[in-house]
């Protein structure tokens, strides 16, 4: 087992006063708290910092740690508590413990009782020990799948848990995804999280819905937007286009004189839930052909000569 120098973890001297301990913890907690810092590794660092503070903020456990520090820093081949070691300071842990994960083996061997380790959330949750942790995973859902109720297979990993004494395992579930599910919603599956320990109930599984971006459609609430590329002459003269929707094709009339960015509303062709049916908006985008033939060039030239339209007439650039 690795010896953890809690003073080092908090970046303070072994003779630091309680105020300095608290200040060091606050600074590091602010920096590494997983809710404030999404970086990989931040959570592990926070766990170390919380564990160090847990021990050093209490005079009794700090004194015990100081004793071990003299002993532990001399051992070359991994740390073992002194024979017959038993912490008398467990009473100091009943409330206000930081972090709801599990503390290190080192912590448990010293302060938790080596044979029946306690986890940090026991200290916090008191009577509720034994329940497994909740797990949250992301579940990608295609836009088409949101139109009606769907059954999806979900495979996920349950991390090993030393308290429930379960190894890492894979779980396979069939889940009902209701019609009209939206990006960011969470589905709760009771009892499908981490197993409990000492006869406790398992935690829940939360599926965080991620609607996969669609190559054609953008989603705003229950509405969909599709960009409709048009030739300049289609935009000028109007046309009829065949438009893909999530449920087959429809015909759309583009009126003459359509501008880039003009929106046409197709009622009821958006996303559907039990209570709401969204619309689809077709947004025109005028596109120039990439290669212009000599013949086309002559036609554009003729148009240029016959038209007096100036799209930049508001600019004050004439000198």
């Amino acid at each position, binding site marked *: 087992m690795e010896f953890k120098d809690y003073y080092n973890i908090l970046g303070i001297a072994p003779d630091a006063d309680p105020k300095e301990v608290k200040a060091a913890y606050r600074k590091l907690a602010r920096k590494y708290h997983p809710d404030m810092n999404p970086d990989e590794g931040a959570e592990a660092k926070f766990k170390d910092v*919380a564990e160090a503070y847990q021990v050093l903020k209490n005079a009794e456990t700090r004194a015990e740690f100081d004793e071990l520090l003299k002993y532990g820093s001399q051992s070359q081949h991994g740390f073992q508590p002194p024979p017959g070691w038993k912490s008398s300071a467990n009473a100091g842990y009943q409330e*206000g413990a930081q972090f709801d994960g599990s503390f290190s083996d080192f912590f448990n061997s010293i302060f938790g009782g080596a044979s029946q380790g306690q986890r940090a959330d026991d200290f916090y949750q008191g009577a509720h020990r034994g*329940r497994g942790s909740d797990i949250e995973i992301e579940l990608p859902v295609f836009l088409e799948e949101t139109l009606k109720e769907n059954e999806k297979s979900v495979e996920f990993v349950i991390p090993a848990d030393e308290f429930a004494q379960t190894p890492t395992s894979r779980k396979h579930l069939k*889940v009902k995804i209701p019609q009209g599910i939206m990006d960011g919603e969470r589905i709760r599956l009771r009892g499908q999280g981490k197993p409990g320990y000492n006869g406790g109930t398992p935690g829940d599984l939360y599926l965080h819905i991620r609607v996969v971006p669609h190559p054609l459609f953008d989603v705003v609430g229950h509405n969909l937007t599709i960009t409709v590329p048009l030739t300049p002459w289609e935009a000028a003269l109007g046309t009829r286009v065949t438009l893909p929707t999530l449920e087959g094709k429809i015909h759309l009339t583009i009126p003459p004189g359509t501008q880039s960015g003009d929106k046409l509303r197709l009622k009821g062709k958006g996303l559907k839930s039990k209570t709401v049916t969204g619309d689809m908006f077709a947004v025109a985008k005028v596109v120039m052909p990439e290669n212009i033939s000599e013949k086309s060039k002559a036609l554009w030239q003729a148009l240029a000569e016959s038209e007096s339209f100036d799209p930049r007439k508001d600019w004050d650039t004439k000198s």
Partner: protein
Amino acid sequence: MSDSLFSISFNELCQLEGIDSDVVIEIVEYGIVRPANLSRETSESDQWLFDTTSIRWLKKALRLHRDLEIDWLAVAMVVDLMRENEILQKENDTYQRQLARFIKDAAHPE
């Protein structure tokens, strides 16, 4: 097949997550989360239902309060800002995607 749930009741929340009922009431009083069915008829806390999104914010609020030792008023402000930031981020992603359909190299400017 497991039942797909979208809410958790007040009692279940306190029991399962080991949260003190007074703490949940305090979190609701500060407006950090709002029961999905809050009305004059459901003013008693044991009738409350929380949606799964609120659960996430509630747990976040608990962690911030406990780990960073900040009071509930400050937690309420932090959670509000985090929530707003998430909404803006999502809106921004949508606009970037739409813009990229019109303007070359518009997506994800460095």
